[in-house]
């Protein structure tokens, strides 16, 4: 694949490109899902190809070819240059300088998840589902996934980066319908379970079977639980929902391409301006957010990004003040700081975009129970159910699968249909406690969308439970 990428880059330069990079990708993905003790899907998908990105007279061009052949590489390069010439740039583009890299990165693992027999994956799902069965539950499901990707990046400024990455994950859900509406409980997370860049030992460690009884009992209990009241109150949010809170209200608005408007037509822009760096009060002093493409098991962990910039760990919010952006070489050059490092493409047939890598809420101190103990009257919220945020990432509304009232520092009755809403900097300004490192968990998000044509991204967020004061909960329709 390296030779093909080199061929593509040479062809692009010969065709007039001032810069070119080529990525060859071979990806294999397996999914197993069982539902109501019936095998729903057993799929084994492979995809391969080469994508070539060029700068011609300051204009970007991108084209791809599914054939991993010399002809495919040359034709993709030629078409990328042709598209760049067809849409010329008025002002040109500068890229932040980098030191060319030679790197080879392999995900550390004990069991290659793709090599784990499909029979074993099916068996695990069926066993987990058996443990979910209760008469009042009308849908149960279990799923596992495995992915292996080999990728080579060659850039015209001399970088050659080879990656062999594996991911895997799994989860279970129980759903119940009745007078209490339609209720769902999931483990370890909602939306197709928890994934990590790791070997199959990660899935084995999830203990889907062991957690099934609690999950299914809670789904049934929610049918007769009281609805979450509509009020302004204190909330403690579990680590999983905090991961999505960080993703939506810190990750996306600090992507510098959004700030410069290039996502305005789809995902949106940002309430942050480039000049806010170092001065914007994002939240309280308890808020420390770090971007870290080196996190062990992170879905956004790599050695170099998709334009050859080294993985880094750097602060995005420090003690509540905006301290950094997620950048590309182009946006870093615009702002005159940094060198990029967050450029990632979905796969071989998409251009890299500024994406989150792994974005963490740094832990504070104490336990979740201690956070709850500090609430006289409030709500404890757990596991995401719905999510929405405006195009500048200010007004958000989230729903959780389950909640409990807090009275005098202790959990009380279970609540269903809980939602909460806020305005990003106001909400983060009300943060008055983050649980400590012992409660800090890495959550994988596998459904992050951006770009036109659309691109998915897999990112991770390390978070602990957190406490916020004076939050609107229980939004009514």
């Amino acid at each position: 694949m390296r030779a093909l990428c080199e061929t593509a880059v040479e062809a692009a330069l010969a065709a007039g490109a001032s810069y070119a990079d080529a990525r060859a990708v071979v990806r294999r993905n397996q999914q197993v899902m069982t539902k109501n003790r019936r095998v729903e899907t057993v799929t084994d998908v492979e995809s391969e190809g080469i994508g070539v990105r060029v700068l011609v007279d300051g204009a970007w061009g991108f084209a791809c070819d599914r054939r991993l052949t010399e002809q495919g590489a040359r034709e993709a390069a030629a078409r990328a240059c042709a598209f760049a010439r067809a849409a010329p740039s008025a002002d040109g583009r500068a890229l932040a300088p980098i030191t060319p890299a030679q790197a080879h990165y392999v995900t550390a693992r004990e069991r290659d998840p793709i090599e784990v027999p499909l029979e074993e994956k099916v068996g695990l799902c069926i066993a987990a589902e058996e443990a979910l069965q209760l008469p009042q539950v009308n849908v149960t499901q279990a799923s596992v996934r495995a992915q292996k990707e080999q990728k080579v990046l060659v850039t015209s400024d001399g970088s050659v980066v080879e990656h062999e990455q594996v991911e895997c994950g799994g989860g279970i859900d129980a759903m119940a319908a009745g007078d209490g509406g339609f209720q769902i409980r999931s483990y370890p997370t909602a939306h197709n379970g928890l994934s990590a860049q790791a070997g199959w030992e990660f899935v084995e460690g999830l203990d889907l079977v062991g957690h099934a009884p609690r999950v299914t009992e809670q789904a049934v209990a929610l049918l007769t639980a009281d609805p979450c009241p509509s009020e302004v109150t204190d909330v403690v949010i579990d680590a999983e929902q905090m991961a999505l809170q960080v993703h939506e209200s810190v990750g996306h608005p600090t992507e510098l391409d959004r700030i410069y408007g290039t996502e305005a037509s789809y995902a949106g822009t940002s309430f942050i301006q480039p000049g806010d760096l170092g001065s914007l009060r994002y939240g309280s002093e308890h808020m420390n957010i770090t971007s870290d493409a080196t996190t062990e098991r992170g879905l956004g962990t790599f050695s170099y990004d998709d334009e050859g910039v080294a993985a880094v760990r750097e602060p995005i919010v420090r003690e509540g003040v905006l301290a950094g952006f997620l950048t590309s070489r182009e946006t870093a050059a615009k702002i005159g700081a940094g060198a990029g490092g967050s450029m990632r493409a979905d796969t071989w047939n998409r251009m890299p975009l500024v994406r989150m890598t792994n974005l963490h809420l740094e832990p504070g101190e104490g336990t979740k129970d201690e956070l709850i103990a500090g609430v006289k009257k409030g709500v404890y919220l757990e596991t995401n159910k719905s999510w929405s945020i405006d195009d500048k990432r200010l007004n958000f509304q989230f729903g959780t699968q389950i909640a409990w009232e807090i009275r005098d520092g202790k959990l009380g009755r279970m609540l269903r249909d809980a939602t909460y809403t806020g305005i990003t900097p106001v909400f983060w300004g009300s943060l008055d406690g983050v649980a400590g490192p012992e409660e800090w968990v890495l959550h994988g998000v596998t459904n992050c969308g951006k770009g036109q044509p659309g691109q998915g991204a897999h990112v991770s967020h390390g978070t602990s439970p957190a406490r916020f004061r004076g939050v609107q909960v229980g939004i009514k329709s």
Partner: protein
Amino acid sequence: MSALPVAQDAIDAAAGDEAEAVVLTERSGLARFAGREVHQPTLIDNVVVTLRVVRDGKVGIAATNRVEPDGLRELARRAGQAADSSVATPGFPGLAPPADPPDVQGWDEETAALGPDEQAHRAAAAIAATTTGVYGFFTSGETELAIASTAGVRTSQSMTDATTIVVAADRGCSGYAEASSWRARSLDPAAVAREAAEKASRTNGAAAADPARYRAVLEPYAIGTLLEYFGFDTFGAQALLEERSYFSGRIGQRAFDEKVTIVDDALDPRGLPKAFDFEGMPKQRVPLVEDGVIRGVVWDRATAARASNGAHSTGHAPPASLLAHGPFPAALQMTGGDAESIEELAELVGDGIYVTRLHYLSVVDPREGVITGMTRDGTFRIRGGKVAEPLVNLRFTVSVPELLADVPGLTRDLTLVNGSDFYGERYPFGALVPALATASFNVTGSGSRPGL
């Protein structure tokens, strides 16, 4: 590359098995622009073969984009291995029998021939049409869907599609417009940009609105998106069987204003026509709501067999990647009303909110059809029956059945609203909808100002 021979080759590679091959080819270009120039131009050329193999009632699926003989042999091996690893599915209806798909339109030679020069030229036309900054894209593509199976299915359809969307925006103002068709010549990117810019010019100085239940006018862009999200959990048979759908237990009941009629109709040439679904079953026009009465949902063969209630496939089998979701409608259509213009709808509303488009929707409660999201790129007050001052982007949390329970009016004309964000493999779809006036649009908060 012609898709049907590839599908046949894949079946041949699976010799000895019951097998079905679905081939989707794509050749497309998307010129994405921001400000005054194209910044993400993407050319895609791909073919994906999905092979479903059945062994002793056990089903396995594999997919590849390596369509040469060795790639297809490996595909057949992996699909067979997946089937061997599975467990027999009770009630599996087997592979679909051959059926004659209806004749549909939806392919245009001129659109299929568009290359990067023409795609970039159309993007440039949108950029040049206004002095306001524009953010959006022009895209066109040709796709072919072919299916072959050992049960005797041999069918294929070539499709074209073209879409322009434009957010015209500067500091503190933004407006939106889009156009889609299977004939690129029906699209005028410059006109789309001008519509967006005109809307943007009226959004400076936007103010907040108090949370309250308002009467409202929703443009087709907003209605199309809302119906699409409502349909995810409401209009499909699997959601009905799992009691997740608002329609669960309500078939035959009047639930909406009698002006509301919703169908799924992939055969309509005004949309993005499809002849058959992802197992080769003919597409049917399916009434979902007629004159306010809930009539039914869309089915594939698997859910029909599971229901054991006389249901049959309506031609809505999903692609393999969405099998777990079950059948879903991808050609929603709402019947128009008597209003000749959106201005007439504003008069019917009298005092309320005008909504151009919606952003980042999420289903809060599928069973009750509750959806939250934001308005965007053109939200206004309606006062005295006229569109008045601009508003900031508003958070809404609505019960869609409640929103459709009292509909003062709908426009006669329908607009095709693009439904695809072009993730994964290209399969164009959209909703054909009017603008709609409602007596109940529940605003629950205010968000960001329009524009950059």
